[in-house]
Structure formats: structure tokens, C-alpha cells
């Protein structure tokens, strides 16, 4: 039975992995800082570890999908991320792709 649990764990992690980009980009329409993202996603029921979110934000920035700015006006300086125009295009396409696939998969699995 341990195999059953492990396999389930692995498959569900794989399923979520692809969606992480989509979910993170969706939250960056307004400037947001890393830890805030970790909290809001956790509250909304899509928990992600800080050690996943921070490197992911940097990767998305390197790919040109996010822009960042340090806010040093407060006592605690924070790095805010916001989606770029290219990122927005990428996000729209990814979202439509997800809707489409979601619809098809739902149809297939509900056939039987």
C-alpha cells in the first residue's frame, strides 16, 4: 500500500507542477512580493513552499515574463514582481490552453 501512496503523491506533484506557472502568473497582475504570494496562494488552497516560489519568480523574471522592483521606502525593503506585456501574452495563452485541456479531459473521463 505504501507504493500506492507514493505513486499517488508523485503523480499529483507532477500534475501540479505544470499549473504552478499559470497560478503564479495569475497573481502578478498587481505588484506582489514573494512571501505575500506564498501566503495568498496558501489561503486560496494552492499551497506552495517559499523555496519553490522564490526561485520560480526569478526564473520567470529571467524569461522576461515578470519585472521586478525593490521598494525601499519602507523599513523592510521588499522586491515586488509584476507581469510584463510578454508575460501577459504568455499567461493568456497558457490559461486558454489549460481551459481547453481541462474541458477535453473532463469530457473524456466523464464518458465512462
Amino acid at each position, binding site marked *: 500500500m505504501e507504493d500506492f501512496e507514493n505513486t499517488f503523491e508523485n503523480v499529483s506533484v507532477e500534475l501540479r507542477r505544470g499549473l504552478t506557472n499559470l497560478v503564479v502568473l495569475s497573481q502578478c497582475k498587481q505588484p506582489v*512580493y*514573494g512571501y505575500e504570494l506564498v501566503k495568498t496562494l496558501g489561503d486560496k488552497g494552492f499551497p506552495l513552499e517559499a*523555496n*519553490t516560489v*522564490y*526561485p520560480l519568480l*526569478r526564473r520567470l523574471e529571467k524569461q522576461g515574463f515578470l519585472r521586478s522592483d525593490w521598494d525601499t521606502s519602507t523599513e*523592510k525593503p521588499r*522586491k515586488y514582481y509584476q507581469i510584463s506585456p510578454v508575460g501577459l501574452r504568455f499567461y493568456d495563452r497558457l490559461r486558454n490552453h489549460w481551459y481547453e485541456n481541462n474541458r477535453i479531459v473532463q469530457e473524456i473521463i466523464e464518458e465512462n
Partner: protein
Amino acid sequence: MKNNLIERYIYAVTRHLPEKEAVEVSRELDELIASMLAEKGDIPASEDERVREVLMELGSPEAMAREYTGKANDSLIGQPHYSLYLRVLKLVLMAVTIGISVALVVSAISEGPFPTSDTTSWINWTLDAVIEWFTSLTSGLLGGFAWVTIIFAILYHKGVKLDFDMNDLDDLPEVPEEKVRIGRGELIGEAIFVTLFAILFIVLPYVNIPIIGIAAKPIPLFTPEVLISVRYLLIASLLTTILEMVVKFVDGRYSLRVFGAITLANLVSIVTVLTWFGNPQAMNPVFAERFQELTGLSVYGLNGQPVPGFGGPWAMLPLPFLIVIVVVTVISIIEIISAGIKAFQFRDKLSVD
């Protein structure tokens, strides 16, 4: 104390990152840890305990560093190279095992306590042989494993393509006809032969082919000094044969590349056999003398007379050696021609289609 622990954690994450990135990531992590600590502000615990809790939540710094470098899924040998790597590895390890075992049986026989000896020396001889077999096999297998692994790791990391791109379905390789396919069995046979050849003639020239039962001690058939003098040719033969096997393995059929490799390997073999067997001293004189004592016949020429049809020193070579020279030369030439015909036939068939 608190700062020290946080600094050490951040350093552990960033120390392998490029300098510019390390500075930026340090600032981010500093911000993250401060936010997480602020969150735990109302929990009744010491500052140090809170820091420890936060860092434990963040997990191993190595794992975090891998996420940052994007090398989380990197491996020594990944697909598609891994599948071929496993197949080549099995083949090499099998050939090494059989080759070393046969070579050591031959070498053990040459050192055996023949013809009669007491039980103790038989037991010692057996023990020695088993120990030598075990140590040679271990180092041979480790060596084979290391070389194959290193070569494939380099191919994988250099991104050398082993399969073709799926840009065009017409680029799919043609299914070779039965007669131009190269069987696995043929390759395994060649690999065993190559391993034996290398061990007996290059590594153990003083043992080479021990003839037993005609004297108190086994007599090597070939003169060791001659073997040593043609060592470079033997090594060249070995390398060109290995090259031929690799190309055959990769292509799996008689292609133009296989034809080229077969031609090279066979030409080197012909030169090697002519130089080695064509040397009047190639046969161990001790063996030749003992043979004459036992049978009353001379091994040189036709019982001491020149072989008809051959001129000069060739006519007085040991007859079996002369036969080997002729047979190897003829077979090599036939092999080159037949590989050429198969390669070109297959190519013609392709262009007609």
C-alpha cells in the same frame, strides 16, 4: 547568534551562484526570512528558536540552490542516451567477463604444476588461479564500466545526438534487409575475440598460446620478443577493430561508414599478420625444436624443404604460419569486398525507391 545562523543559511544557498545573482538572491532571502520571522512574532519562543524554525521550514539549502540554478533535474546520463548506454554497458561487461575468464584459464594452464606434482601445489595453483581471476575480473569490469560511463556522460552533456530528429518522416532509417543487418551475436563474438587477443598477445606476450603436455613446462607457441616488437601493430589492430565494432553497433547494418571501418580494420590486420607471422622468428624456436624431437619432422617449410610457389624467406616459414597468412589475407579481402557490395546494394535500393 541569530544573524550568524541566517547569514550562514543564505551563504549556503548562494555560494555556488554567479556573483551578481548571489547578491540579488541574498537580498531576497533576507527579505523572505524577515517576513517569515515577523509572522512568528507572537509565538512565545526565543529569537534563536524562531530563526531555527523558519530555516527548517525553508528546507535544505542545497535543494534551494538547485532550484535557483535550474539544475534540479540534471543527471549524469539522461534519456535518450541512457537506453543506449545500458545496452552498450551490458555488451561490454559480458565481453570483458568472457574474455578475461578464457584468457586467465589459458594463462593458468601455462603456469600449472605439470605434468605430475603433489596435492599441495595443485591446491596452491587452483587458489592462485581463482584469486587472479577474481582480481582481474573486478578491475576489468570496473574499467569497462568506468569507460563506458565516462564516454556516455560526455556525449550526454555535450548534447551529441544519438537518434535522428523527427523533422521529416522520410528521414526515418530504412528497415534493413535481413542480409545487410548486423546481428548482436556477431558483435558479442567479436568483442570476446578482441578481449582475448588483447590479453594474450599484448598484455601477456610471455604466455601467449601455451602448448602443454610436450615438455615439463608449457611452451609459448609464439616468440615473446617478436610479439613485443610488433606490439604497436597489435594495438593498432585492436583499436581499428574496436572502432569497427562501435560503428557496426551504432548503424546496425552494412552502411557506408561500416564499410569504411571494416576496410580500415582489415587492412591493418593484413599488415599486422604479414609483419608478425612473416617474421622468420615468429614461432618460438624452443617449441620448434621440441616438435622436431617428438615427431622427427621440421615445422619450417615442407618438412625442411622450401614450400613450392613461395619465394625467398617466405618459403621457409613454418607451414601453419604461411597458411594463416594466406587465409587471413584472403578472408580480409573477401570481407572488405562483401561489406562494400552489401553497403552499395542497400544504398542503390534506397535511391531506386
